[in-house]
């Protein structure tokens, strides 16, 4: 069917280095032009993925993201410039990609991928590239791909470490490869593996892994070479250690093992232990205070204690003179936290401090703790604009 695809002289000139490439040639280029690829997440992995897939001439590229560009993205999300800050990521990306290659159709889905819309969105594409940043969406993308029979080109990063593979791929012998649930049947408990916002990530790493992902997408589409199906590639950017491990399908996979039990999408937040119904029953609500309220308490010289649960190196960048008690060792400081007056707990954005308050309420019976909404970032935005942010 690829014989029906025609190229203009401009396109032939643009793709000439593919067309003269042995084994790839004009047939490979035709397959790219016919292909529809969905990139989930236009962040660190999505940036190189989208740039290379667009440059390579994939005919239709879909983007899914609900977020807007933030200045802390620019350290690694090379798709964006300072002018894009505050813009929806998919719209900024679409503009950039259309400027790069007018022969590619870019479809922007400005939404979070959810159990309600995933099957509809994914169904329109041939290959999915997962560049998301959280476990619920990883399992959602995987399950939707398995249920719809789509290839899922996967990469994931943490600090200096990257993983890549191709899931749910049927090879030339008709043999179906493993998917995410064969590799990891269940997610880690919340809190064990911090997000990149907390754990940090070396900026070049998503560039390396996202480029590998783009290469796998192109191989899946063109049929050239051997994909990473059944193999998990690992890269440690700190030591330059690489490993390629063998992965196989498992009989107990709930989607396509010997006795499948799951025939549709599920509640992935609950599956990953985040905000499930049981959680709400057990945990006391976290009380909060906003930065304006805190500012006026400080100005009134109110009798309060401010506790900063970030790490010491973050404190050095910017602080509001709170007492430093890092989240990782907060239980060593229990005696120093007042029980007889209002205690405001803060971190960078409000997430870690909320976790600390939950712990202190549950395990140590505190009732006087208030989470600073938006953390020190909100303080820098609303109270003290001279404060550095990170």
């Amino acid at each position: 069917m690829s014989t029906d695809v025609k190229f203009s002289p401009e396109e032939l000139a643009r793709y000439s280095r593919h067309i003269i490439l042995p084994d790839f040639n004009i047939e490979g280029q035709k397959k790219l032009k016919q292909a529809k690829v969905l990139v989930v997440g236009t962040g660190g992995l999505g940036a190189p993925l989208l740039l290379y897939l667009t440059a390579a001439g994939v005919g239709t590229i879909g983007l899914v993201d609900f977020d807007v560009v933030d200045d802390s993205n620019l350290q690694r999300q090379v798709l964006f410039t300072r002018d894009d800050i505050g813009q929806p990521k998919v719209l900024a990306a679409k503009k950039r990609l259309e400027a790069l290659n007018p022969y590619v159709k870019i479809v922007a889905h400005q939404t979070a991928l959810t159990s309600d819309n995933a099957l509809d969105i994914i169904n329109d594409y041939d290959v999915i590239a997962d560049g998301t940043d959280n476990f619920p969406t990883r399992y959602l993308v995987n399950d939707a791909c398995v249920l719809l029979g789509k290839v899922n080109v996967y990469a994931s990063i943490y600090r200096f470490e990257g993983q890549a593979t191709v899931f749910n791929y049927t090879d030339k012998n008709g043999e179906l490869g493993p998917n995410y649930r064969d590799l990891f049947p269940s997610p880690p408990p919340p809190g064990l593996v911090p997000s990149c916002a907390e754990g940090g990530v070396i900026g070049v790493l998503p560039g390396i892994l996202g480029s590998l992902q783009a290469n796998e997408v192109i191989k899946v589409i063109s049929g050239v070479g051997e994909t990473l199906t059944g193999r998990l590639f690992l890269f440690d950017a700190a030591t330059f250690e690489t490993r390629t491990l063998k992965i196989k399908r498992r009989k107990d996979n709930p989607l396509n093992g010997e006795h499948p039990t799951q025939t549709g999408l599920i509640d992935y937040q609950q599956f990953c232990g985040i905000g499930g119904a049981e959680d709400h029953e057990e945990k006391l609500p976290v009380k909060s205070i906003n930065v304006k309220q805190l500012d006026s308490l400080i100005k009134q010289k109110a009798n309060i204690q401010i506790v900063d649960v970030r790490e010491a190196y973050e404190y050095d960048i910017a602080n509001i003179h709170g007492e430093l008690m890092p989240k990782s060792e907060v239980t060593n400081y229990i005696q120093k936290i007042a029980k007889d007056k209002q205690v405001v707990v803060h971190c960078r954005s409000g997430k870690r401090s909320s976790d600390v308050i939950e712990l202190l309420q549950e395990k140590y019976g505190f009732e006087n703790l208030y989470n600073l909404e938006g953390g020190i970032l909100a303080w820098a935005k609303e109270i003290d604009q001279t404060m550095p942010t990170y």
Partner: protein
Amino acid sequence: MAKIIIPTPLRKFTANQAAVAVKEGTVLESIKDLTTQFPELDKHLFDEKQALRGFVRIFLGEDDIEDLQGNSTAVNQGDTISIIPAIAGGKI
């Protein structure tokens, strides 16, 4: 001795060591040697029934121990065991 490579998310339980030397024997014996050296690690690798947790895979060389003889797979002098956890970062 054999070597266990510790993934980044679990290094906070191994005093930041990226690799730990352990006794050979079976995979279970090698890993128990690791968790004896670093007891905090045990509950992150095994559940209450001492089964390996679902977000962690153990490889001996290139192979998942599930595809060999599981916990009783023999570990020889100089072998490398990899602990591979699920990581989800990417977009942020």
